[in-house]
């Protein structure tokens, strides 16, 4: 026989100003099965909690309804109080009289009536509650960081410095990401390589970090604290332990005409190559797609010249299987290239380049050792045009969002150009200048006022080539929409930042959401910006949306803290509000008929198969089983199951039905 206790809180005056709390307690007290009912000014206070604890003992309560604020606020408080009073915490429910009633209604009888209804429905529900035990899952204290840009580097170092093991997987031959390609960085103009390289080296040397470059994620299974990850280490075609990184092979390789990715195609590299001088690890890989030996079956020059005999042409890809507790996704971004723009010639004009190409031109380690020379003929451009928002903020032809970084890097580019070509003229076409950030607007002002960059507010309609010059036709909307025509030597497009290639496939492997632009999606845009909707997988950097280095690094540290917090316990405790497939004795075992429709709809891959076998191992029946570690309690499977074999613990069909019936019936 149920014996329910009801505790009505005034929440100071938050509830009692419009709800007659005394009347609620009195009315509810008369209901069948309610053994005790009272009201109090602050239920969450120490004396308030004591009232609950005492009543549980005194009245031998089998269930408690605290009628107060939102369960988001104080459910843990009251469940804990109940546990201290000797009641299973999951036999405590909250009726939300504040957000659902007192705050949204005037003071009158109807408001009090509604409050009574809300409490009644919870009384009916709690009668059907059962005692549940929290779920414990073990934690493997090793983190996986996917992507070795500045985001991944920061996260990995932070986690490793907390004393935890980290595995970093980077798909290119070196870590460093886009930051390694940048010349100088806004808003301070410090050299990107100089601040990045030491951190790259730290990753390689950290005793807690294992680095796999030229490697990709093959598959991810499991759940928070217990992921099983397969990594494909692509064959580098050499023995890394023997190779000394002398680089002799890279200078002798006869295949030298491969567009250099690191130089954004503005230089060539051999088939066996180290992507850039500061690469970590500083060892070459053979690009099998372009190597003459793999294409034609002969060459092997590198093998002949290698002083340590490190080359291994028959090296296979290697698959590693790792146990991982938490994952940080930091796969970064790409940019749209000039061939996206029909109005600017589909990439056919050599002197129309993108922002990353300009970074390489301006970089001391770049193809021109830092001189701004135009790609077509190596001349110094006297007149240069930068076009901001190229392809951005244009739902009709490009993409709708603002990439956030390009206003700043365009100001930087114009400034760097002026610093290097004093007599040159720099023009910037822009829509708005978006320079929010510490010292950011000052930086743009500096470009305009001190370096005399000509900012023109307006769009460029077309660019074409005539007599070796680029004719840039645009409009100046601050001068009454006057057409502007600039005869330029070079044009730099500040193209949109887009999701990195393969982001969608990776998101699907990880079972995390991504947005319509294929950027990884955070669990909550404000309150959970580094979490994904899959427990134990976190985000860092530009893989979520284009961001600059300070934002990237902050988020990367945030993700690291989340991982460290997870690793601070050896076991995870989870609320048992998960689905359960019913079980009974033989010969039924369960009403589940084994159709496994539920398996196909579960967004978290939480449904497994369980076999019931005879003693000699013959399978009698296979039914669904919920993996409690993975289930997020969304209830999709419950709604789908045709034989009604699944129920959500704490929110069973019967409980919800009882709530609804209570609301529909008079009392």
């Amino acid at each position: 026989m149920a014996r329910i206790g009801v505790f009505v809180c005034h929440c100071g005056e938050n509830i009692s100003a419009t709800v007659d709390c005394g009347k609620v307690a009195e009315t509810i007290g008369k209901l069948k099965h309610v053994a005790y009912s009272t009201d109090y000014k602050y239920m969450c206070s120490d004396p308030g909690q004591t009232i609950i604890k005492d009543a549980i003992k005194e009245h031998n309560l089998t269930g408690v309804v605290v009628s107060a604020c939102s369960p988001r606020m104080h459910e843990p408080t009251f469940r804990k109080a109940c546990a201290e009073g000797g009641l299973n915490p999951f036999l405590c429910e909250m009726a939300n009289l504040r957000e659902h009633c007192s705050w949204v209604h005037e003071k009158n009888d109807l408001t009090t009536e509604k409050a009574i209804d809300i409490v009644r429905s919870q009384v009916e529900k709690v009668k059907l509650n059962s005692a549940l035990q929290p779920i414990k899952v073990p934690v493997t204290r090793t983190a996986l960081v996917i992507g070795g840009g500045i985001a991944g580097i920061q996260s990995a170092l932070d986690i490793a410095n907390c004393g935890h093991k980290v595995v970093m997987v980077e798909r290119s031959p070196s870590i460093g990401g886009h930051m390694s390609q940048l010349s100088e960085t806004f808003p301070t103009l410090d050299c990107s390589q100089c601040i990045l390289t030491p951190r790259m080296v730290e990753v390689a040397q950290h005793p807690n970090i294992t680095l796999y470059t030229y490697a990709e994620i093959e598959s991810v299974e499991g759940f928070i604290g217990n992921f099983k990850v397969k990594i494909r280490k692509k064959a580098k075609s050499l023995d890394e332990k023997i190779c000394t990184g002398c680089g002799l092979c890279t200078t002798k390789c006869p295949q030298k005409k491969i567009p250099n990715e690191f130089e954004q195609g503005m230089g060539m590299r051999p088939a066996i190559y180290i992507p850039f001088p500061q690469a970590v690890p500083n060892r070459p890989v053979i690009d099998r797609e372009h190597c003459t030996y793999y294409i034609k079956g002969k060459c092997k020059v590198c093998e002949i010249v290698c002083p340590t005999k490190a080359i291994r042409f028959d090296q296979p890809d290697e698959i590693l299987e790792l146990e991982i507790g938490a994952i940080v996704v930091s796969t970064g971004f790409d940019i749209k290239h000039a061939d996206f723009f029909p109005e600017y010639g589909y990439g056919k004009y050599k002197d129309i380049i993108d922002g990353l190409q300009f970074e390489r031109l301006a970089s001391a380690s770049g193809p021109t050792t830092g001189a701004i020379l135009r790609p077509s003929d190596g001349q110094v451009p006297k007149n240069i045009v930068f076009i901001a928002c190229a392809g951005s903020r244009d739902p009709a032809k490009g993409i709708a969002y603002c990439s956030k970084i390009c206003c700043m890097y365009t100001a930087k580019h114009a400034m760097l150009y002026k610093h290097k070509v004093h007599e040159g003229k720099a023009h910037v076409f822009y829509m708005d200048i978006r320079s929010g950030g510490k010292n950011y607007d000052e930086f743009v002002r500096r470009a305009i006022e001190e370096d005399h960059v000509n900012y023109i507010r307006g769009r460029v309609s077309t660019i074409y080539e005539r007599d070796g010059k680029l004719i840039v036709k645009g409009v100046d909307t601050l001068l009454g929409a006057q057409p502007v025509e600039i005869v330029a030597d070079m044009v730099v497009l500040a193209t949109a930042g887009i999701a990195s290639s393969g982001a969608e496939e990776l998101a699907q492997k990880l079972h995390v959401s991504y947005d319509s632009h294929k950027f990884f999606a955070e669990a909550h845009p404000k309150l959970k910006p580094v979490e994904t909707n899959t427990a134990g997988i976190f985000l860092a950097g530009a893989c979520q949306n284009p961001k600059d280095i300070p934002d990237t690094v902050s988020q990367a540290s945030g993700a690291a803290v989340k991982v460290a917090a997870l690793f601070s316990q050896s076991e995870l405790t989870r609320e048992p509000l998960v689905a359960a497939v019913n079980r009974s004795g033989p010969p039924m075992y369960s009403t589940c008929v084994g159709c496994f429709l539920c398996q196909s709809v579960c967004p978290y891959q939480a449904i497994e198969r369980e076999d019931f076998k005879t003693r000699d191992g013959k399978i009698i029946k296979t039914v669904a089983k919920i993996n409690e570690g993975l289930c997020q309690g969304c209830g999709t499977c419950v709604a789908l199951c045709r034989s009604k074999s699944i129920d959500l613990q704490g929110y069973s069909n019967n409980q919800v039905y009882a709530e609804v019936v209570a609301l529909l019936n008079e009392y």
Partner: protein
Amino acid sequence: MKFGIYPGCSLTGSARDYNESVFALAEAFGLEFTQVPDWNCCGATAAHNLNKELSLALPARILALAEKNGLEEIIVPCAACYSRLVVTRHELKKDPELKNRISEVIEMDYRGTSKILNVIEWIDKYITPKLDEKLVKPFNYKVACYYGCLLVRPNKVLGYDRAEDPQTMDIVMRKIGAETIDYPSKTECCGAGLSISRTDIVSKLSGKIIEDAEHRGADAIIVACPMCHSNLDMRRPDINKYWKTDFKIPVLFVTQAIGLAIGLSPEKVGLKRHFVEVKIS
């Protein structure tokens, strides 16, 4: 297969040269046209500036007539007519209610089943496959293909070629031996319908296109639209007066160029009707 032709007003008027070359080509390749019977004005620039329903009803009537007469494909040599017809089909396809209303207005059942081909599509489909065997006089000239506005725009509706840097006409011209130049004025405005009301604007805009083509060393400008042709050819004296120039570059319809390449006489393809003398033959 029966296929239809919708000439529109210009092919029977100011662009008789175009008309003659289209028919000459058809004849040479053994193709036969049926003119859409009882055809009417497509509405041109005027209708869609005044009344949307009218601007859809006029082309819809043409299309309904084509359907009624079993014409599965109709070729529309004029780029403006082509645009009006395709836009109408697009609008009526996405709005069935509008389609019913227009059907009532034209007192005919419009279904949208006839395929609409512009002149390049028609050439691609029926001429190019047999071009090699008929080619007798390769068109060994440097040409600037001028597409104008309506052949490739609006891109979302037509779904034809690339709006900013179209290629289809260039490809056809290269097939008959021409060298096509890459130039940015391919789809710049020629002044279009202002030809009559504001000749000065046409002179200015068309002049820029001609200058660009001549500057880049083209021997001829190739077009596929009567309006473009009249602005670049018939308005040449105005253009030269406006710019104080002496542009002599001839303007040919793509069908005329092909006609010459397969050995048809200049008269046969209407070249004698041009204002700017065509020394090419």
